[in-house]
């Protein structure tokens, strides 16, 4: 955890879990979503969030050489991605601190924090390898 973790491309928060814990009342559920929206608006005003959206639960999966299309569900509902934020912050510590404020956490939502890459990390790796090979 040092300045080595600086990343100019920002971070993505992926919200995992599309169902809150059972037994949450409609009022409480409404409160969570209101808090979530207020949290996002606040981050946007501070210039820390540059994009964010919920995703609908339906969808499709395309996979394999034969490009087969199948319907969801995609992952178990506790792992399914329910939405995302794109953060314009420069360290993972800051991104993690923001993730910890997620109003869904007490209800079983998990937040995955991922550094956004400027170029494909695989491309970067093979370029580095090629440089070493030339030396």
């Amino acid at each position, binding site marked *: 955890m040092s300045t080595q973790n600086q990343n100019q491309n920002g971070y993505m928060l992926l919200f995992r879990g599309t169902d809150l814990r059972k037994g949450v009342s409609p009022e409480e559920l409404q409160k969570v979503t209101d808090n979530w929206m207020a949290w996002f608006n606040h981050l946007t005003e501070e210039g820390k969030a540059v994009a964010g959206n919920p995703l*609908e639960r339906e969808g499709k999966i*395309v996979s394999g050489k034969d490009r087969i299309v199948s319907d969801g569900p995609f992952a178990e509902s506790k792992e399914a991605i329910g939405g995302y934020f794109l953060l314009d912050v420069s360290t993972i510590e800051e991104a993690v601190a923001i993730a910890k404020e997620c109003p869904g956490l007490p209800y079983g939502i998990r937040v995955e924090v991922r550094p956004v890459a400027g170029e494909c990390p695989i491309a970067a790796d093979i370029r580095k390898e090629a440089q070493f090979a030339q030396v």
Partner: protein
Amino acid sequence: MKNMSTQKQNGYMLLFRSDEWYEELSHDEIQKVIGQNNAWIERLVAQGKAKPGHPLQRNGATISGKNGRIVSDGPFAEAKEVIGGFLLLDVETIAEAVAIAQSSPTLAYGTSIEVRPVTEECPLDVRARELAREEQLASA
């Protein structure tokens, strides 16, 4: 497929999942796939069908537990399910979004692509309203 009920004004998100498919490919093959993939994205952007995409680094952290007490290293999913990148599509139907996903050059190398409608209104909000209505009906 193109009817009003499947039209979405907010576009679609493609989530690319894969394991380390490139481990078994030669340097030249990897370079070729990356070149094809970049060209594919550039073409979609030029056509106005996609916003520039972002790859994600494979490291990161996952926060869970009440008040975010648990911080663990790395993405949450198993290697083959890790999300390696995403693309936001500005198209109106899921059929169009699926057709674009099917044209991805990475599919032949074992990626799978999740196609999800982006929404303005949180599905949890919708659920909260449904629950409130059910309670009202039950008490009526």
